[in-house]
C-alpha cells in the first residue's frame, strides 16, 4: 500500500492541483452547468418517508430533463452511515460513492471538523440570493456552528406539538403548562429518550424555558457552568417525570413511536420537528381531521437542514446544480406543499416575484399550526453532550 493518503494529504493534494484550485474560483455558473451535463449525482438522503422519497424522485426527473443530470436517491436509515462511508473512502484515497448528502447538526460538525466537505460553494449558487438569511439566521448557522458555505440550506424545522383537538381542547403553550397538563392527565404524555434527536430537542426546549441566563445558550460552556445553569432544568424534569407515561421510568425509542402511540390513543400529544407533519399525517389518514398543532407561546427550538457535497465526490458540478435546483422557488414551493411533503421553505417571500410567490399559496388545512411562534436557535453544540450525559446519569438506569 504505497498510495496511502491521509485526509489532510488528500485535501492538500486537491489544493496543489493548479487546475482545480484556480479553475474553481473563476468558474462561471454557466461553466458549472455545462460540466454537470451527463454527470451522475448519488444523493444520500434519509428515506423513512414515502412523501420525501416521492419528492426526491420528482427532483430526479426534473434534473434529468432540465440539466441532463442523472440523480440516484441512495436511501439511508441514518445520515451517519454516509458520514462513516465518506470518512473511510477519504482515508483509503478512493473516489466518493456519495455526491450529495442531506445533513445537519452533529453530522455536519463532524464532516466540517474532519475536512470531509467540498466547498465553500453555497453562496455562489444563483438561487442562494433568494434565501431568507436575515429572517432565518439558521440558514447560515447550523446548531450554533457557522456553515461557511459548506452546506446549502434546504428546509426549515421547528419544534411543534400536536394532539387530537377532540380530546385536548386547550393545548399547553409552555413547558410549565405542559407540567400542569401532565399532572391532570398522568401517564398520557412522554417524549423519546435522548440521544434521540427529538428527545434532545424536548430537553433543549425545557432548558430554554427554565434557564435563568439565556445568554449562556449560544456560547460554548464547560461542565461547571453547565451543572449550575441546568439546575432549574433538572428540577423541572424531576417534577415532570412522575406524571409521564410509565411514571417517566421508560421512554419510547423514537418520535415515530410517540406519534404511533398518539394515533393509537395511548398518548395525549406528540411532537415533531416539521411544523407541517401533523397536517401531512391528517392527509395520509394516520391522524384524525380534528388534529391540532401548536408551538410554545414564547417560541420553540428551530433549525435548518441542508445538503452538502463530500470532498471526494466526482460529480461536484452536478451536485452544485442539484443544490441550486433544490433552492429554486419551484422546487421549494413543491416541497412546502402539504399534499406532497410540507417541508417549510428557506426562501424569503419578499425576494420572490409575484408569480414565484403565488406558488407558495397553499391553503391551510386541518392540523396546520394556527399561530406560528418565533424560532429559538439551537443552543451551542457544547450543550448537547453535557445534556445527554447528565440525562443518562439521572434517568438512564
Amino acid at each position: 500500500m504505497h498510495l496511502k493518503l491521509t485526509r489532510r494529504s488528500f485535501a492538500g493534494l486537491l489544493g496543489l492541483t493548479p487546475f482545480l484550485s484556480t479553475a474553481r474560483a473563476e468558474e462561471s455558473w454557466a461553466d458549472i452547468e455545462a460540466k454537470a451535463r451527463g454527470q451522475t449525482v448519488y444523493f444520500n438522503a434519509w428515506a423513512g418517508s414515502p412523501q420525501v422519497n416521492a419528492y426526491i424522485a420528482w427532483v430526479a426527473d426534473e434534473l434529468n430533463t432540465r440539466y441532463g443530470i442523472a440523480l440516484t436517491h441512495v436511501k439511508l436509515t441514518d445520515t451517519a452511515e454516509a458520514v462513516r462511508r465518506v470518512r473511510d473512502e477519504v482515508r483509503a484515497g478512493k473516489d466518493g460513492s456519495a455526491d450529495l448528502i442531506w445533513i445537519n447538526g452533529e453530522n455536519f460538525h463532524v464532516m466540517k471538523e474532519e475536512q470531509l466537505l467540498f466547498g465553500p460553494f453555497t453562496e455562489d449558487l444563483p438561487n442562494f440570493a433568494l434565501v431568507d438569511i436575515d429572517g432565518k439566521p439558521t440558514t447560515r448557522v447550523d446548531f450554533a456552528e457557522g456553515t461557511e458555505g459548506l452546506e446549502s440550506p434546504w428546509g426549515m424545522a421547528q419544534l411543534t406539538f400536536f394532539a387530537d383537538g377532540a380530546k385536548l381542547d386547550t393545548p399547553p403553550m409552555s413547558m410549565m403548562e405542559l407540567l400542569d397538563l401532565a399532572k391532570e392527565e398522568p401517564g398520557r404524555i412522554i417524549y423519546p429518550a435522548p440521544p434521540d434527536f427529538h428527545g434532545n430537542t424536548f430537553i433543549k426546549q425545557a432548558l430554554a424555558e427554565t434557564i435563568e441566563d439565556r445568554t449562556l445558550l449560544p456560547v460554548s460552556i464547560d461542565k461547571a457552568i453547565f451543572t449550575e445553569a441546568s439546575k432549574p432544568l433538572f428540577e423541572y424534569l424531576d417534577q415532570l417525570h412522575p406524571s409521564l407515561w410509565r411514571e417517566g421510568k421508560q421512554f419510547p425509542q423514537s418520535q415515530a413511536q410517540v406519534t404511533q402511540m398518539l394515533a393509537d390513543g395511548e398518548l395525549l400529544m406528540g411532537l415533531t420537528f416539521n411544523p407541517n407533519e401533523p397536517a401531512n399525517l391528517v392527509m395520509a389518514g394516520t391522524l384524525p381531521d380534528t388534529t391540532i398543532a401548536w408551538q410554545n407561546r414564547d417560541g420553540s427550538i428551530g433549525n435548518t437542514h441542508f445538503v452538502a457535497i463530500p470532498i471526494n465526490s466526482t460529480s461536484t458540478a452536478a451536485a452544485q446544480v442539484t443544490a441550486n435546483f433544490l433552492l429554486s422557488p419551484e422546487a421549494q414551493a413543491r416541497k412546502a406543499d402539504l399534499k406532497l411533503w410540507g417541508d417549510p421553505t428557506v426562501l424569503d417571500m419578499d425576494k420572490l416575484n409575484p408569480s414565484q410567490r403565488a406558488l407558495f399559496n397553499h391553503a391551510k388545512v386541518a392540523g396546520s399550526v394556527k399561530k406560528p411562534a418565533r424560532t429559538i436557535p439551537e443552543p451551542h453544540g457544547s450543550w448537547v453532550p453535557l445534556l445527554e450525559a447528565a440525562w443518562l446519569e439521572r434517568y438512564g438506569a
Partner: protein
Amino acid sequence: MNRLGAAPLALLWALPLLLSLAMLLPAASDGAAWHMALAHPQLWPALALSLATGAVSTLIALAISLLLIGGLSRSAMWNRLQAVAATGLAIPHLAFAIGFGFLIMPSGLIARLFVGGDAPPYWVSVQDPWGVALTLALALKEVPFLLTAGFAVLSRGDAAARLRAEARTAASLGHAPGSAFLRVVLPPLMKELRWPLVIVFVYGATVVDMALVLGPTQPPTLAVVIWHALNNAEPMTNGMGLVMTLLLTGALAIVLAAVALLKRAGRNATHRMLTAGPSLLQRPRATALVIGLAVTAMLALALLVLVLLSLAPRWPYPALLPAAVDASAWMAVSPAPLWLSLLLALAATAVAVASTVLWFETQDRNRDRWVIGLALVALALPQLASAGGQYRLLLPLGLTGTLFGLFLAHLTPVAAYVLIVLAGPYRAFDGRYIAAARALAASQLSAWARVKLPLLKAPLLIAAAIGFAVSIAQFVPAQLIAAGRFSTLPMEAVTLASGGNRPLTAAFALALTVPPLVAFLAAALLGRPRWR
C-alpha cells in the same frame, strides 16, 4: 485434496471475515474508548439484561420445542407441525415483534377485546423494565428454528431408521414411549441441537430490531446501547460501541463456557438417569397439543395482525377493526429490488452449501470447531461493527459498489448459518452406509451421490432454506457495500421502516416473509424421507 477442499470456504468466507474483524482492532484498542465504555452508566445493567433475555428465551424455546418433538413426533400432527415451523421461521424477527407487540400492548388487540373503555389501560406489557415481553417474543420466534433443526436430525434417513430400531429395543425392555424417547431420542437430539441452541442464545442476547420494539429502554439491552453508539457519526462514540461489543462477546463466551463445564460436571447424573430402569412415562401428547396450538395461534395472530396493520393507516383504540382500509402501503413494495435479492440469495446459498459440504467431506472433524467458532463470532457481533470492518476491507480492493462485493457481504452470514446448522447432522452420519456401498463396488463419488446425499437430503435442504432466508433478510452489510449502486428488498424495507410508518413497515415485513416461506415449505416437502 484435503487442502483444496478447504479452499472455497477459507478463501471466500473465513479469510475475508477474519480480515474484516482485524480492521476493527485499532478502534477497539483505544484507551479513551475503553474509558468511555466503562464509565457508561447503563453498561452493567444493560449487559445483565442482554444475558438474561438471551438465556431465559433460549431455555423457554428449548423446553417448548422438546415438548413438541417428544409429544408429537411420529403422530398425525407431525407433518402439520413442520408446516407451522416453516411459516414461523419465515416471518422476519422484526415483523413478528411488531405483530406480537400489537397483540399485547396497552392499545393492542387483547386489551381491545377484553378491557375496552375510552383509553387504553395502564399496562406495562411492552417495553417492561424486566424485558419479559422481549423474552417471550424471542422464545416464541425461536421455537420454529429449534423445531426445524430438530426435524433436520429426526427425518435424516440413517438416523430415523436407527432411532426406530432403538426405540423398539427400548420398548421390548419395558420402556413406555415417553421413557424410550428420553433415553433413546433425546441424547442424540440434544447433541446435534447444541450449535443451533448456541445460535439462539447468541441471537437473543444480541438482537437489536426486536429489542427496539419490545425491549425496555432505561436501561435498554446492551445490544441497543451498542447500536446507538455504532450508528453515531463520531469515531470516538463508534470506538466505545466496539469496546462494548467486545465486552458483550466476551460475556457470551464466558456463559457458554460455563454451560459446557456444568454439562461435563453433570455427566454422571445424566448417565444415572439414562440407565435407570424402564418407567411408565407416556408421551406428553395432550400437553404438547395444547402448547403446539398456542404457539401456532400466536404465530398466526401475529401474521393476521400484520396484514391488518399493513392496510390500516389509522386504527385507534378501542376499535376492533380499522375504520378504513387502504392499500397504499402495498403500492410502495416495488418488484425490482426483489429480483436482485432472489439472485443474491440463490447464489450465496448455493456457494455456502457447496463449500460447507466440501469442507465436511475433506476436512477432519477436529477442525470443525475453528470454523464453527468463527461462524459464531460472525453471528454474535453486531452487524454495524462487522459491516464496518468489511467495508474497510473491500474498499481498497475496489469491491464496494460491485455485485461481487455484495455477494461476499451476503455469503458471510449465510455460510455461518449453513455451517452451524449442517455440522451436527452431517458429522453424525453413519459411515457404515458408505462402507457398505463401497463394499458393493460403488466409487467414492457414486457412494456419496447415491447413498449419502439422499440420506442427508432433509438437513441439506433445511440448511439451504435457512441460508436462503438469512440472505433475503440481509441489510446492514449489504447497504454499506452496495454504496447506493444496488438496491435489495430489505434495503427498501428497512430504510422506509426508519420513518416508523406502521402500515409500510408491516407491508414490507410481509413481503419479506414470502420468499423464505416458499423456501422452507419446499425444504419440508422435498425433505421427507421416501421410505417410512
